[in-house]
Each structure stands twice: as C-alpha cells, then as structure tokens.
C-alpha cells in the first residue's frame, strides 16, 4: 500500500529530463517520467531562460528507495540557427534519499547528483544525450546515461499535433544488463507533451510534460 501510494504521488507530481530543463522566463514546467526502473517527478520554475529551480522526486522500484531533492538546472550554452537549436545544460540536485529496505541500517541519507544534458533539433530531426552521477553515503551511488535520436514523420505547424518517432538507449554500468533500448512515440500539442514506449526489457514507458 505504501509503495502504491509513493508511486501515485510521484507519478502525479512528476518531471524528468528528456524535455527541456529550463523553460521561458516566468514559466513553469511539470514533468513525469515512468519506466522500468523508476517513477520520477520534476516541477520547476524558470525565472529566466538561463536557469530553473524546482522539486525532484524519484521512486526506484527495484532498489526500493526514494529521492526528494531541490534541483537546479542551468543553460550553459545555446546555439540558435535559422532551422535548428542546440543546448547544453547542467543539472544538479541536493536532497535526501529514503529507503525502507529491511537490510539497511540507515534509512535516510543526504544525496547529491549532477550531470549534463545536450540536445540538438530541427523540425524534422532530434538527438540528445544526458548523464547523471548520484551519490549518497551508503545506500546508493550510481552513474547512468542515455541518448536519443528521433524523426518527425510529418512537419506540423504551430499549435497542431506534433508526432515524433524516437529510439532511446540507456546505459547503466552498475546493472547486470547494462543497456536498455526503447523505441518511443512522442506526441505534443500546445503546452502538453506525451510519450510512450516499450523497452527491450519488456517495460512500458510513460512520460508527460506540461508547460505553463
């Protein structure tokens, strides 16, 4: 029951990365990412187009721990071209990690994480890379990275329904099966973005982003 509640809370609040870590000035973003490993939520506010600050919550199902953190996202560099845009971001977080796993003596620990996000896109093509180093005292330290490529099967106008076909590869050096490949379909219209996929490990992904 406790697990179910945690998943529901995180799914309801959630935000993660594949989408932009920084919005427009005075913009809010709500993101939820749910896959075979974890459910995560990120809500952030962007005082300017250069940085954002927000809450990050994660529930790692198999490892049975949660993270609740304040996350800072900084736009390090943006390359604006006539028909493309590329970005480099730094994401860092500070908070606590909680686990109710019985074998652990320590249930709550401080946690920090940091990583970069890079993306490039035109109206037809998309590519991204991101990584994250996470460190707590004893419960969990890890490094993960993932990359995506995507193509829009048709070019939609402003305010219309946009569709993307994407392929994501995740790399988790600490896991037994280090690579996970997930084909996804992304749809967005106006301020809402939805995507779903089915991974090589047999897990369904569900991601949602809303900007306001």
């Amino acid at each position, binding site marked *: 029951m406790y697990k179910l509640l945690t998943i529901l809370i995180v799914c309801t609040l959630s935000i993660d990365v594949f989408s*932009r870590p920084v919005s*427009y*000035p005075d913009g809010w973003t709500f993101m939820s990412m749910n896959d075979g490993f974890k459910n995560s939520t990120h809500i952030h506010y962007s005082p300017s187009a250069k940085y954002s600050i927000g809450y990050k919550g994660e529930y790692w199902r198999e490892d049975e721990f949660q993270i609740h953190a304040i996350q800072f996202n900084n736009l390090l560099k943006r390359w604006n071209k006539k028909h493309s*845009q590329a970005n480099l971001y730094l994401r860092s977080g500070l908070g606590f990690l909680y686990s109710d796993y019985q074998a652990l003596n320590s249930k709550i620990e401080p946690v920090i994480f940091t990583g970069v996000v890079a993306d490039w896109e035109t109206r037809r093509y998309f590519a991204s890379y991101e990584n994250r180093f996470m460190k707590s005292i004893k419960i969990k330290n890890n490094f993960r990275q993932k990359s995506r490529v995507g193509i829009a099967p*048709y070019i939609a106008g*402003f305010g219309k329904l946009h569709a993307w076909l994407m392929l994501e590869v995740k790399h988790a050096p600490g896991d037994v099966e280090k690579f996970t490949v997930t084909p996804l379909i992304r749809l967005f219209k106006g301020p809402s973005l939805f995507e779903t996929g089915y991974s090589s490990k047999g897990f369904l992904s569900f991601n949602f982003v809303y900007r306001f």
Partner: protein
Amino acid sequence: MKFIFIALTLLNFAYADENVHSHVNHQHSERAEGLSVGSIDPDGLRINVDVFGLVYDFCAQAIEKVFMNRNEVTGIEVDLANGLITIFTKHGEDIEDNLIRSLITDAGYNVDKINRR
C-alpha cells in the same frame, strides 16, 4: 507488435489532424500558419521578426507569452516553417527594435532582422 499497432494508429490520427488543419489554413490565410493568439488591429503596425532557434511549439509559446504581456501588442502570428514572428500592434503604437531584440534574446532566441509595414 501491439506497440507498433498503437504507434501506427496514433500516427495515422496525427497525420489526419495535420491534413485537415493545413487545408483549412490554406483557404483562410495567406500563410501556412494563421494568427496564433490575440487579434489584428487593421490600423496598427505589423512587425515581422526573423528569429533564429524557433524550431518547435514550446519556443513559440515563450515568444507569445513575452509579447502578449505588453499593452502595445494585440496579436502574434508564429510561422515555425520560416522562423518568423509577426507582432501586431494597436493603432498609433510601436515597439522599438532594440526592445524587440532584447525581449526575444531574454526569452532564449536570437533576432536576425526586423521589418515593418
């Protein structure tokens, strides 16, 4: 297999939606994409701004939000295909080029050129 079927169904829906809207826009607008927010004052200025980095809807929403907060502006038209923002002002109102550049740069994009008519 189920995933592929669902993906193709969604894509079919998406493509159909786009076709319908494109047809409507073609009939009622001189450009592929019509006024995205607000209204047009026939006696006001029409300021065309070529913008770099305008590649998807979220970018355009930033521009909309910035300019629609200003009293001089009545409407915004976004043309993603050509990276073009058109700002419609009230009669007798204008926005200086430097201010337009500053607002768009602060929103995270770059201005190529500005034309009025």
